[in-house]
């Protein structure tokens, strides 16, 4: 038995009987643990004990709860698993693309509480209670997001691999700026690499989507 397996067995054992550590782990990770303490479910004494003995999980798989596209998903992942990997391999949400896997190309862009981040440089265990929105979560049932519509109408993709990340960047921009300038769009997509060079169409589509959204809202 490897050292790791032993450790996993110990971890699993902790779930069998109720220990503080097991309880915290069972309740979910990180932010959830903090929330429990905040809500006073654990007394001040336990909070002090928590400081003396930190809750350590891994390196084996640990239960993590992810709030993805309006649903609550439970996955078992190692602490080293990135959010991009958890989305693609655990949840089958393969719309999020991984290209550079180093935060340099933004193809893996998702929103955490409406803020665009690189899911390849975010660990799944670190997401906590933040709400994840992926490209799959943009459409409202059968109705595409205005940026998705505009990308189709303006032919704003070639090979399409950067497209999900590009759309997440553009849609995030429209969320906080209803009337963006061309420079705003350039700035919002400045991290999204498109090696086909479809940028002019992306800019056009995003500005058109903003216009369409404003009209629709009037």
């Amino acid at each position, binding site marked *: 038995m490897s050292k790791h397996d032993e450790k996993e067995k110990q971890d699993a054992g902790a779930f069998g009987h109720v220990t503080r550590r097991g309880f915290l782990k069972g309740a979910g990770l990180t932010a959830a643990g903090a929330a429990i303490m905040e809500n006073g479910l654990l007394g001040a004494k336990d909070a002090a004990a928590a400081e003396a003995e*930190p809750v350590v*999980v891994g390196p084996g798989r640990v239960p993590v709860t992810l709030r993805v596209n309006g649903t609550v998903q439970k996955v078992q992942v190692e602490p080293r698993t990135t959010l991009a990997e958890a989305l693609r391999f655990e949840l089958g949400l393969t719309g999020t693309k991984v290209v550079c896997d180093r935060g340099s190309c933004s193809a893996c862009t998702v929103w955490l509480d409406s803020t*665009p*981040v*690189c899911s390849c440089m975010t*660990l799944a265990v670190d997401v906590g209670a933040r709400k994840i929105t992926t490209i799959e979560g943009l459409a409202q049932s059968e109705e595409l997001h205005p940026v998705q519509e505009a990308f189709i109408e303006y032919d704003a993709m070639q090979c399409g691999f950067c497209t999900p990340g590009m759309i997440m960047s553009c849609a995030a921009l429209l969320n906080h700026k209803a009337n963006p300038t061309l420079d705003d769009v350039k700035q919002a997509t400045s991290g999204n690499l498109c090696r086909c060079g479809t940028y002019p169409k992306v800019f056009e589509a995003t500005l058109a989507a903003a216009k369409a959204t404003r009209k629709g809202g009037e």
Partner: protein
Amino acid sequence: MNRFEWTDAATVHEAISQLNGRAVVKAGGVDLLDRLKEGLEAPQRLVNIRNIRGLDRIEEGKDGLRIGPLVTLARLSEDKLVLERYTALAQAAGRAATPQIRNMATAGGNLLQRPRCWYFRQEEFHCRRKGGERCFALDGENQYHAIFDNQLCAIVHPSALAVPLMAFGARVVLTGSKGAREVELERFFVTPEQDIMRENIIAPDELITEIKVPRLQPATRSFYIKQGEKESFDWPVADVCAVLQTKGNVCLKASIVLGAAAPVPWRASKAEASLAGKVINEQSAREAARLSMEGATPLAQNRYKLAVFEAIVRRAILRQASS
């Protein structure tokens, strides 16, 4: 990436009590994950400090600006107070990396990130900074490397925030198991001659718990310019921050720091001295820019940086005359 344990620290004390070199700090995680993915480090445990309360504040007090280490680059770049008073800091934060990374990366992590030298970042090159025998950049691909203090190791310091922070005379508070200490940023960074294996003096069990920017003198303005190879996101080939205190059009005091020039953020002392007491104009700015490059020892492929630096130093100075 190796497998590791994970713990979510609720307090500074809880974090530092675990740090020992094998358990390492994770804040924004951007640079750390990059190093782990490249196999440069294999820690046993990641101690997440991202959820520690109170480390993400931006406050101005009597003695100046206090920045929590967990403030993201995005927040720093948009903060009204920072934009108005410490303009160069907001400019540097807003030009670093990509929008996505700026939403994740923290001020503390930006100061502590390891060098971006492509030999350092590749597991295959066992360079001096990793305990090896040679610097591969010295006779290799060195177009983005240092033009000052580059005899032993030609990395350039990777932190964008360090450039304005040093120009403002900032200090960092380091908290470890033995207590807290406050260090001038100027003394925080380490040259290759001092210790080639590290870029700063932080101990393995210490955290940056605060960044302090002293209150600015009246009539002090700052400007930051970054020059990359392309207009959208890129590493700088040269960046500069000029902080000038003026009376009318006369410069009383200048603080000029160059980034992407040396293994540490590089103070252009001669340029600073040349501006003191002078009217800020094309001639004095040009002279200061020339002096900022005095003593440079460019490598085979990076002599072009001298002209780039001269141009942006001149522009950063002149921007203050016109603003």
